[in-house]
């Protein structure tokens, strides 16, 4: 049940909840790019990632995300972390600046850089997760699809069916909870017939899953048929122009948040691309000391 609630929209009224969905998507993409910008040394990259991490944790607190389900989600990725560490430690690391950590039989050396690298990649994954978590738990799924539709709008020129696709996404999102409920119901019904979903050998497991999947598909097809009939009966036509019950609005706070975040992202991209991050940071530091 906890895994289901991960990333689900939670109805609070925070600053981030009130931002325009289009703005949030834009900022999310900008921040993701920022997270993926490497610096000239692993240590700087790691320090910056830790900085991002602290900021994102604060944002998560502001937007009432559940830290418990977030950390549970991270814990469930321990296997990935182990894999990354092993992989990066044993990949030969010819970089000149590498500091050796341990040498086996005078022939194979493990470098600190490998460990930095693994930690950095894992940290980036966590950052991506917390970013998407903030977006999905503060934005109504419907608003998200409206925002996507808005971004896809220019594609209409090349006859791209942006409205149809947005409608498909919003219907799919709308039915995820319904289908999960249905799955729970069917599981209970099959458990009453002696199915054990948590134990049993491979054959029993496969049979158990079949007893869940088939009824789930049957009812999903039934439901989609009914839904399309009902939409048609009420005159739905994907090609005609439609008005909206809820409109997305770009407020002053959207402008302010974009004006704060986008220049920061631009600055960090400049640092990263120009590869003179250390110089600039030293200069900034010196200026501060000078005051």
């Amino acid at each position, binding site marked *: 049940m906890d895994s289901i*609630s991960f990333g689900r929209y939670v109805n609070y009224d925070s600053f981030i909840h009130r931002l325009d969905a289009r703005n949030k998507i834009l900022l999310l993409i900008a921040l993701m790019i920022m997270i993926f910008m490497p610096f000239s040394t692993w240590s700087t990259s790691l320090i910056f990632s830790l900085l991002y991490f602290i900021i994102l944790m604060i944002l998560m607190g502001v937007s009432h995300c559940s830290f418990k389900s977030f950390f549970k989600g991270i814990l469930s990725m321990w296997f990935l972390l182990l894999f990354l560490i092993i992989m990066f430690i044993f990949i030969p690391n010819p970089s000149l600046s590498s500091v050796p950590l341990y040498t086996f039989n005078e022939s194979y050396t493990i470098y600190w850089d490998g460990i930095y690298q693994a930690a950095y990649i894992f940290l980036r994954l966590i950052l991506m997760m917390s970013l998407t978590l903030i977006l999905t738990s503060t934005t109504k799924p419907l608003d998200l699809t409206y925002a996507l539709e808005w971004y896809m709008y220019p594609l209409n020129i090349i006859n791209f069916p942006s409205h149809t696709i947005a409608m498909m996404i919003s219907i799919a999102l709308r039915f995820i909870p319904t289908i999960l409920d249905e799955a729970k119901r069917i599981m209970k019904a099959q458990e009453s017939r002696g199915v054990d979903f948590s134990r049993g050998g491979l054959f029993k497991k496969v049979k158990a899953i079949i007893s869940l999947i088939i*009824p789930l598909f049957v009812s999903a097809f039934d439901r989609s048929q009914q839904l399309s009939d009902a939409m048609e009966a009420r005159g739905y036509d994907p090609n005609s122009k439609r008005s909206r019950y809820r409109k997305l609005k770009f407020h002053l706070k959207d402008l302010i948040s974009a004006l704060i975040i986008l220049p920061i992202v631009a600055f960090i991209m400049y640092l990263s691309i120009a590869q003179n991050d250390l110089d600039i940071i030293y200069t900034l530091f010196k200026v501060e000391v000078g005051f």
Partner: protein
Amino acid sequence: MPIDVTNLTYIYFKKTPFQADALKGVNFHIDDNDFVAFIGATGSGKSTIIQHLNGLLTPSDGTVKVDEFLLTNNKKKNKNIGKLRKHVGVVFQFPEYQLFEETVEEDVAFGPKNFNISKEEALIKAHKALLDVGLNESYFLRSPFELSGGEKRRVAIAGILALEPDILVLDEPTAGLDNEGRDVIMSLFEKIHLEQHKTIILVSHDMDLVNKYAKKVFVVDDGKIVAYGKPKDIFLSYLGHGDLEIPQIYAFCRLLKEKGIDLDVNKIENIDDLIDQIDERIQIKNG
């Protein structure tokens, strides 16, 4: 198998923003070989109660005791839930959605096979259960998906009957059926109750059926049991105020009373009693 439920409390999504207190201290006892009904408004907690009877839900607090099986909020101690499910068969609302096998007989035999019964024996039990619900040999090898709604439901019920449970729990078994299908299904349960001496626990919105078939009624309201007794006594006590829907015969008596014809409702349990009393009145009037 007697059932004892003490101080049963259940909270959905405990300790999350979606938390919902569904049961708030429920107590009841059901005798062996009884026919009882749970009635109450939608969302009052009936389905939540019955899902505790075969261990699908674990109590948040309190205990559920079915014969020697004891369920408490300590999940690790609730052993033998698998065995309990063989003794307590639960038929959910719209059970036709649980069908999945290629043929009707295989679907019905699926349950027994899960309890380590050989394939041949499971098929024998399946055929017997199918005949019990009124589906003859011509149905055995058909696909469950090509049957009518009422037939599908009977296949699904047979799927539970094939487990040969001692206690049969039915959550709104007649929902969405036409009048004829309703009567067929209910008389089937009555037959099972009388001939095979199984305990029947019925959840229903249809007060006429409850009045006709149940021996005892529990009224559930807002996660608690607020009344309990014989159907007639329960319905008569609710006759004055409109908290609970009442069977048509009592509603009819109420209308007659408003027109000045006061029948002796305490002597009315079914439609024949009602007809007799009206007949009596007519004869008195005609002199």
